[in-house]
């Protein structure tokens, strides 16, 4: 639409080298500009780590930031190399990204779309970041992904679980390693059916916003396939802190399973409330009453204390995994910080490595070349077994972990135990699946 000859931000960096020391103003026109925004030229490359530092997810954000710092250290050849040693692609040599030393800037998303976009904007416009990554909620991820598409930088999503991130809101410049609501449901359904029987009536409490809805819709579809019947799907306000009045409805509904489509603070409070109301010890229809939390976050689940014991859910990764990649990551993270990493830290670390690897393989920082290198990329050794970055929607496909709150935890980190690894083919779906339809990747945007 715009046919302007004015330049965009990307010119600045190349210009800075060429024009350094000159005392007279220099104007750049599009002709001399680089082919993409924030080209690092011959200098170091800047990555933007955009994580929640204030607000309810601040601790999760802090853990993400730790993982990013570790990743940068490893990429620059420091530390023990972590997953660089176990990664199936051997392109990364510990010499930065494609020979460019890695630097980073950080910002605060506040878990608000506006703040997250402002923070990402400042990284792109002011600091010359060429890739933005991080975040701890789907709303923020989708908002920042949209911004990165417009600005022409790569977005490597952090923790985002909504189907929409790689469904109806997918973007060519955006990539997600984390799993999604559909995969959670697909992985959980058979386990739930085999443990709790086929003839069950379930009741759902769903956080009343986009992620909650996609999670609820996915759970409903899969559980009904298993022969369960849904009694009710009740929406709860995101701002709710006390779920007692919803628990009362559950008690009198005749349902024998409660599925909590809540995350973070909501999950902690609703699970605590459910246990307080005696739902865990209840017998309904002659069966033991069960509670399910489709998406677990170990960090936040700690807030529910004893209540998580025995509760089934799913997670993207857990530090107790025994494959070589996970062990290497837990070792370097644990040695540096003194405690095991969370799943958010893991996905952020992996995303950074995947980006660096793609740049190195493509031998270019141009976002379009990076997109081409990541699309259809198959890899292993990063903690989740063989994984595919699917070209159609930029979603990673890998095994999904079904976990359970541990009965006798040995330490404060030992909250969950892996009860089942659902293989990737069970959680695979077609790109035009009804839960993901309606979006369009578009074309990659290099910015300039």
């Amino acid at each position, binding site marked *: 639409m715009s046919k302007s000859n004015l330049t965009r931000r990307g010119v600045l960096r190349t210009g800075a080298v060429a024009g350094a020391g000159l005392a007279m103003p220099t104007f750049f026109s599009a002709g001399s500009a680089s082919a993409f925004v924030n080209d690092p030229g011959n200098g170091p490359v800047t990555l933007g780590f955009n994580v929640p530092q204030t607000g309810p997810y601040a601790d999760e954000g802090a853990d993400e930031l730790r993982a990013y710092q570790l990743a940068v250290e490893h990429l620059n050849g420091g530390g023990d190399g972590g997953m660089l040693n176990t990664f199936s692609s051997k392109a990364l040599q510990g010499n930065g990204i494609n020979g460019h030393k890695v630097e980073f800037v950080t910002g605060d998303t506040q878990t608000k779309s506006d703040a997250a976009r402002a923070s990402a904007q400042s990284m792109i416009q002011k600091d010359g970041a060429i890739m933005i990554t991080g975040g701890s909620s789907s709303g923020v991820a989708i908002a920042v992904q949209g911004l990165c598409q417009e600005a022409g930088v790569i977005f490597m999503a952090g923790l985002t679980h909504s189907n929409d991130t790689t469904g109806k809101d997918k973007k060519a410049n955006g990539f997600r390693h984390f799993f999604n609501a559909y995969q959670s449901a697909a992985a959980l359904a058979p386990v739930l059916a085999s443990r709790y029987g086929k003839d069950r009536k379930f009741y759902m409490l769903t956080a009343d916003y986009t992620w909650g809805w996609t999670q609820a819709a996915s759970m409903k579809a899969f559980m009904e396939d298993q022969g369960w019947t849904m009694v009710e799907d*009740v929406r709860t306000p995101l701002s709710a802190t006390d779920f007692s009045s919803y628990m009362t409805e559950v008690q009198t509904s005749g349902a024998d399973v409660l599925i909590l489509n809540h995350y973070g603070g909501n999950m902690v409070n609703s699970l605590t409330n459910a246990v307080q109301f005696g739902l865990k010890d209840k017998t309904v229809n002659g069966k033991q009453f069960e509670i399910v939390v489709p998406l677990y976050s170990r960090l936040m689940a700690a*807030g529910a204390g004893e209540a998580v014991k025995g509760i089934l859910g799913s997670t993207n990764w857990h530090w107790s995994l025994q494959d070589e990649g996970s062990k290497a990551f*837990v070792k370097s993270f644990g040695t540096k910080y003194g405690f095991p990493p969370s799943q958010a830290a893991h996905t952020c670390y992996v995303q950074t490595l995947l980006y660096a690897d793609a740049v190195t393989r493509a031998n270019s920082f141009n976002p379009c070349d990076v997109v081409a290198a990541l699309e259809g990329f198959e890899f292993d050794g990063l903690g989740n077994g063989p994984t595919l970055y699917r070209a159609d929607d930029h979603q990673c496909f890998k095994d999904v972990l079904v976990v359970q709150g541990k009965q006798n935890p040995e330490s404060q980190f030992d909250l969950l135990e892996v009860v089942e690894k659902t293989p990737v083919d069970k959680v695979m779906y077609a790109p035009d699946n009804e839960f993901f339809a309606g979006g369009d990747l578009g074309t990659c945007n290099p910015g300039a």
Partner: protein
Amino acid sequence: MDAILLQTLNGLDKGSAYALIALGLTLIFGTLGVVNFAHGALFMVGAFCAVTVSRLLTLSYTVIDETRTDFLGNPMKVDMPYLKSWLGETVGGTIIDWSVPLAILFTIPVMLVLGYAMERGLIKHFYKRPHADQILVTFGLAIVLQELIKHYFGANPIPTPAPPMLTGSFDFGALVGMDPNQVIYPYWRLVYFLFSAAIIGAVFAFLQFTTFGMVVRAGMADRETVGLLGINIDRRFTIMFGIAAAVAGLAGTMYAPIISPNYHMGMDFLVLSFVVVVVGGMGSLPGAVLAGFLLGVLESFSSMNEIKNILPGIDQIIIYLVAIVILLTRPRGLMGRKGVMEE
């Protein structure tokens, strides 16, 4: 029927939390004429008093357990609370389990001192300033308190369970002669309700039946005349500020087992408690309590499925809707007095 009984219980329980916070807020509004945006933060600090006590009681030394290994394969370090090693597993363990009720003893002095210091050090200078300035300074204070708590306790919620014998639930229906297993209600929520009722009663009795309370009430009605009578009303108002802070703090301490405390829980309650106070009517203590219970009960009933099916999203807005209706039909809230905060 059982659903209605349960929702009434829930409503009263929620309402008692609202009423307690609003009561303290009204004391500050009514007595001092100060819009205190840090009141939610006082509630939060109260909840973290419970966390602090449970941390203090579980102060531990580390024992290296060679038989087990931690996640890095090193020998496991196990925390052993001093209390358990001094007093034995049972006695020490019981004291630790009862940390939340014990925290009340800790909360009262801490909050009294905090309230006193806040009034003398900060609020005192803002009596004659516009409400807007009071909002700015107390909001700033709330942020500072919040950030300090975040710095020491982190951002994640911290589980603070009730004593084991009170964590479960019991058959409330059977108690009142209904079929068993129809109305199951958690012990702690009932404890919370009774506790709030006791505190509210105590505050009213204090204001109603003591000379001190009489003077304060007189001061609320006409500060200048009381001052002219040679009574040092400022000193009494300072103490009332301390009491208001203590009420908010106690509300928070006892709330800790219901929702795990986190550093921004005060902000979640702040707006709500202002709505409660205003709906009750400025400067009216009974109004604040009445409005607290009213909004609590209405909120509970609006989350019933039968009602949500007719009016989707009603549970999201019910409090605000009721506030608008009440303020439009009753200009000064339920029991407000003329002229208070209408400038």
